């Protein structure tokens, strides 16, 4: 047991050391790398897509919306007493306007610590059970420049890994259930938080010099879609055969946002329809040239999604090319 424990600690230590390669070794002495007249260009790419296909008639639908823009921030004033800066924000088709940003490491990390995870459970009346019905990390409040007090920042971020935190409470009318982060983590397929995929046996701590945080969760067949069914006038629960969420937040040592990347991929089959969804957010310093993800996201997603659906349904049903299935 001691040997196993030692091995685990060693792995964690190595992981942390590796992470520190790109981070500052000076835990508290990092200096700002953003000043008045600092100019930074970012790519902002947001896309949502959903592919649907009905289970009986194989009717297909595909919706995708993608917004890709480059913005430039030119800092014109900084007031560290109130932890704020003012920048000119320029967008290609819109023009230039004032942008006020907040820089306090403590307040910002406190905000992340409280709101980064969104976890919802519901009481399933028919199944007499607690069901996970929502999980996301969809907080995209943008902090482009942060005062680089990484020690306090990481202390607050550690709260995200506190297994005793109550993430939701559900009542079935008689009993109130408190679900902790530990309950949630133990129930899902897999997760990886800062390179660590098991927090059961060891209390997780973050290095106080980290400037990059990454999370990924696989909730396939654990999370359910809750749908109202007219016939039964009640809710039915359909498991997602695929539900993965990943989130990365990366700053320079001096506190300038390098990257925010979020991806959610889902697949769910209800009585009537198979739904596949992809959501993606990328905020990348350096503009479009710095982004590795292929552009024309909608078309990329469409081609990725069509193939498996075609394979699935080509076996299921064949339709006449004319579109007339059944002439009287």
């Amino acid at each position: 047991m001691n040997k196993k424990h030692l091995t685990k600690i060693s792995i964690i230590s190595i992981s942390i050391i590796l992470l520190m390669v790109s981070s500052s070794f000076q835990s508290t002495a990092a200096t700002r790398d953003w000043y008045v007249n600092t100019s930074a260009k970012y790519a902002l790419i947001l896309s949502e897509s959903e592919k649907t296909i009905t289970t009986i008639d194989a009717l297909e639908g595909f919706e995708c919306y993608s917004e890709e823009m480059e913005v430039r921030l030119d800092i014109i004033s900084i007031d560290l007493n109130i932890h704020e800066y003012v920048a000119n924000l320029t967008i290609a088709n819109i023009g230039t306007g004032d942008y006020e940003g907040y820089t306090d490491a403590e307040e910002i990390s406190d905000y992340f610590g409280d709101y980064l995870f969104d976890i919802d459970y519901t009481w399933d009346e028919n199944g007499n059970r607690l069901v996970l019905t929502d999980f996301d990390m969809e907080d995209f409040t943008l902090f482009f420049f942060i005062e680089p007090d990484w020690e306090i920042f990481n202390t607050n971020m550690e709260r995200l890994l506190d297994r005793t935190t109550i993430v939701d409470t559900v009542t079935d009318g008689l009993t109130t259930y408190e679900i902790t982060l530990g309950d949630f983590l133990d129930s899902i397929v897999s997760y990886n938080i800062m390179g660590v995929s098991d927090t059961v046996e060891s209390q997780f701590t973050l290095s106080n010099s980290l400037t990059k945080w990454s999370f990924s969760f696989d909730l396939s067949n654990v999370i359910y879609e809750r749908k109202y069914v007219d016939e039964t006038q009640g809710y039915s629960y359909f498991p997602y055969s695929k539900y993965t969420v990943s989130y990365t937040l990366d700053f320079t040592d001096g506190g300038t946002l390098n990257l925010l990347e979020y991806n959610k991929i889902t697949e769910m089959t209800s009585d009537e329809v198979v739904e596949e969804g992809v959501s993606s957010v990328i905020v990348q310093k350096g503009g479009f040239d710095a982004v590795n993800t292929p552009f024309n996201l909608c078309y990329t997603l469409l081609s990725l999604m069509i193939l498996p659906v075609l394979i699935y349904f080509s076996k299921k049903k064949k339709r006449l090319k004319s579109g007339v299935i059944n002439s009287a």
Partner: protein
Amino acid sequence: MLKKRFVQTSITCALLTVLSVNLILPGSAAIVRDWEEGDEYVFGMVANGEISYTSLAEDLSSKSVFIDESERMYTITEIFESIKEVKVEAKYDSGNEATHTFHFDADLISTYYTNNFFYHNYRWDEENSRIILVGFQADFGNINYFVEPDWELFNTNLESLVDRTEIVDTVTHDYTTDEITLGDFLDAIPSYKIMGISDTEQTPFSISSSSTKWSITFDLSNYMYKSELDHINYTLSYFPYSKYLVSIILDYSDGGTLIAYDSTLSYEVTTDETIYKGEEEYRIRKGGSSAIRTPYNFIYAILSFLIVPIVILCNKKKEKR
């Protein structure tokens, strides 16, 4: 000369004979509907758009892309002959179901198409003392899937689309009101094609009474202007579109079932600060999404309707020489 004329007439006759294989010529027995109770049809629909912005002053660009593909299955459950309506049970790719009742009256539908087709917005350009086009739209609006195949009536109504005397907009300036007719518009734009024919100036345009397929394209490049408001001085500036192409295709079967509808727009304009490029399309296809992804060769589809008027037009032009 006579021999040449004879050869040309012979070719025309031969073409007409060939065409009559899959067409019912005017004056022949009434065309029978090819849609009836119990029929099931799948229609695919797609609305796509891509707009890009490139800043001239800054090293910045943006792009918006949207794709909306959908399928619906219509099962005809009842036809109300007296009120000319058809009831369908609809199923959608979302899994939802609904019941709809559509008009199928050829007169009503073609009148609606005609009345809603054009939108022109001309404006007085104060700075240059001129009338300019700042808004244009051409589409048939809500498309009907099933139509009573009374094509003679249908085409008679559609002919008013190309009435050159029709006033498309009025502009008031300096105590004067100018009326802009469709003829003014058609004569001013770089090019257009209505059913494949690009010149209606000298001959009143007529559509074959048996047409079931219609195509209209407009090139408004360097004629259409983008207006931009200066938010500081509250003055308007106008920038010509270097490209502004509009294309509409509507295609029914002889029996009155919608086969295809295409509405596309492609444009590019450079203002003081930005290059705008846009591609938009809206398509409907009988046969569903797979039919949408299959390239649709309308030229081939309407070839039969183009040959006769083109031959006649050529003859007329030669006669004038």
